[in-house]
């Protein structure tokens, strides 16, 4: 089995940046030996202090990666992210940079229940200045990480659990390489002419499956991966969407105050899509149940996406 691209990227940065520091409640095998316990730092279950320590390191010149393990644990460490990491450049009027990278796994196929499965990208977009990256694949995660490891401001990467499962290296990847991926640039991962399907993180795969299903019905779907929720590539998506007759925006988070409702508004006000041609497919407004059977009801599926696309196109004249 080859080395995980995320590790390749991370180790390259550890080698290149001698003060890069990694804080986590778990260990990366061999890192303490290679980089020393001052750079690969094993922490108690103290996420609030761990994040605050990351802020102190980052403010005084040591880029720091805080690995929260799960986005679920972000909720015990919100204060240092919201009130400190993302505030000090502004509060200090530019005296400080805070190059802090936060890693957190969202969900997918673990079925561990609603305390453990969170998809907080929309929430985090309300924090001014924070970069919120939501990779959709192994290479996407590594490529966004490569950029984050050189970014001068706080970044959160919300990773899907799927990319760490056994067999991660056998799936074909939507990103051909793990070269650095710029923030704020959406990526067309499949071409198509009738409808634009927009996904982020886990829902990019759903969009691709839906595109296959639509192809069988004679509908050509283009698929767009947002890659970062903030900055959001509003104009790029609008440009792509304007080449098709309809757009379906797909998110596994609930709809209220969501990224996709926000993007949807832009697609309409920019004139890229007409109101009757837009659909948002989001999670039902409830916590994510542990049962996969219940999840199938609550979360958007490829079939939901395909159905929404067909519905949006219904009666829409070809341009």
């Amino acid at each position, binding site marked *: 089995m080859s080395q995980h691209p995320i590790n390749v990227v991370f180790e390259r940065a550890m080698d290149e940046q001698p003060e890069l520091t990694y804080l986590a*409640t*778990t*260990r990366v095998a061999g890192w303490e030996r290679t980089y020393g316990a001052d750079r690969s730092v*094993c*922490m*108690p*279950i*103290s996420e*609030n*202090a761990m994040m605050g320590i990351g802020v102190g390191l980052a403010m005084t010149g040591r880029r720091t990666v805080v690995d929260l393990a799960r986005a*679920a*644990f972000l*909720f*015990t460490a919100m204060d240092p992210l919201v009130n400190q990491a993302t505030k000090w450049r502004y509060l200090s009027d530019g005296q400080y940079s805070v190059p802090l990278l936060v890693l957190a796994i969202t969900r997918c*196929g*673990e*079925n*561990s*229940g*609603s*305390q*453990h499965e969170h998809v907080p990208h929309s929430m985090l977009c309300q924090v001014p200045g924070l970069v919120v990256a939501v990779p959709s694949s192994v290479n996407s995660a590594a490529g966004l990480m490569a950029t984050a490891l050189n970014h001068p401001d706080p970044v959160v990467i919300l990773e899907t659990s799927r990319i760490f*499962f*056994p067999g991660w290296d056998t799936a074909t990847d939507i990103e051909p390489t793990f070269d650095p991926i710029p923030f704020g640039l959406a990526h067309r991962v499949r071409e198509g002419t009738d409808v634009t399907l927009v996904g982020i993180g886990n829902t990019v795969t759903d969009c691709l499956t839906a595109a296959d299903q639509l192809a069988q019905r004679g509908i050509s779907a283009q698929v767009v991966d947002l890659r970062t929720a903030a900055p959001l590539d509003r104009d790029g998506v609008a440009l792509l969407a304007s080449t098709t007759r309809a757009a379906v925006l797909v998110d596994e988070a*609930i*709809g*209220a*105050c*969501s990224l996709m*409702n926000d993007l*949807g508004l832009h697609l309409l006000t920019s004139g890229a899509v007409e109101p009757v041609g*837009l*659909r*948002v*497919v*989001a*999670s*039902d*407004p*409830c*916590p994510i*149940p*542990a*049962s*996969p*059977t*219940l999840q*199938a*009801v*609550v979360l958007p599926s490829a079939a939901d996406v395909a159905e*929404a696309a067909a519905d949006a196109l219904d009666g829409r004249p070809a341009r």
Partner: protein
Amino acid sequence: MDLSELYAQMCLIRAFEEALLEVAARGEVPGVVHPYTGHEAVAVGAVAGRRPDEWVVGYYRCHGHAIASGSPIGPLLREMLDRAGGICGGKSGSMQICDRDRRFLLASSIVGSQLPIAAGVAFGERAAGSGRAVVVFCGDGALGAGVAYETLMIARQKGLPLALVCEDNGWQDRNPSPAVMPMKPAELLRGLGVEVTEADGNDVEQVASAMSGVLDVCRAGGGPAALVARTYLRDFHSQLRNFVPAAYRPADQVERWKAKDPLLRAGQRLRSLGTDPQPVLDAASAAVAEAVRGALAAPPTPVDTALSSVTVAPFGAALAGSDVR
């Protein structure tokens, strides 16, 4: 409670966890399992002396807490196997179960978060002058969390009847606790002014008798008080689906603790008292096998309640926020 009864409960937990891991290895458990194997004497001994009207609060390694509190194994299994009849209708899975009828308040999967919730329940008991204690479990790793400290400070200041049981297995996931914490649980809790009793967590009788003292302190208004039970995970931290868990502890350490297995020791003691433990063990295995058969034969979790019980208030539609779906 006599030793046979305690032993029977331990056997039930052991059989439950072993069966569950077996089913998981076959790919039939969709979620994660944090097995209680090795800790059985802690839950069983700690809950032995609680009165039926006293609440018990657990953490994610909770199957033992629930079974010791009286939760039926069938609905527990079905919850974890995504079958009809799950104790929480399929919404909770393995880590966040609850059983209000047995006063098993809840298990929380966020380390430390169960502690203030239990303190809130204890606050209510004290305010009501009920003379009841609240039993709450946590791992040794949970003492790293600030919320554990906050809770203990408040519990002390307000004199809450909070009976804390720290399951000190020396590890927190893949980290040995001494690698991340400067003090051992008992020393730390004492440093915070909490009355601590220590017990061999693999000796169910010792746990039960130590805990009865802790509960008495709490019921008499002298709480909070803590039991630190030294124990060890026989198997591993957790298993996700059928992915094989990595070995992360020194093999000799694992071996050493095998000799101190709580069931082995309780069984020997029973035998020395003239009771043959085997029929008890067999009965537990049979009950679990029956429950597993029942669960596997059951239909999947029914979907009609997928969206129920988010709120009681009738404004689901308005909360949806996805009106263009």
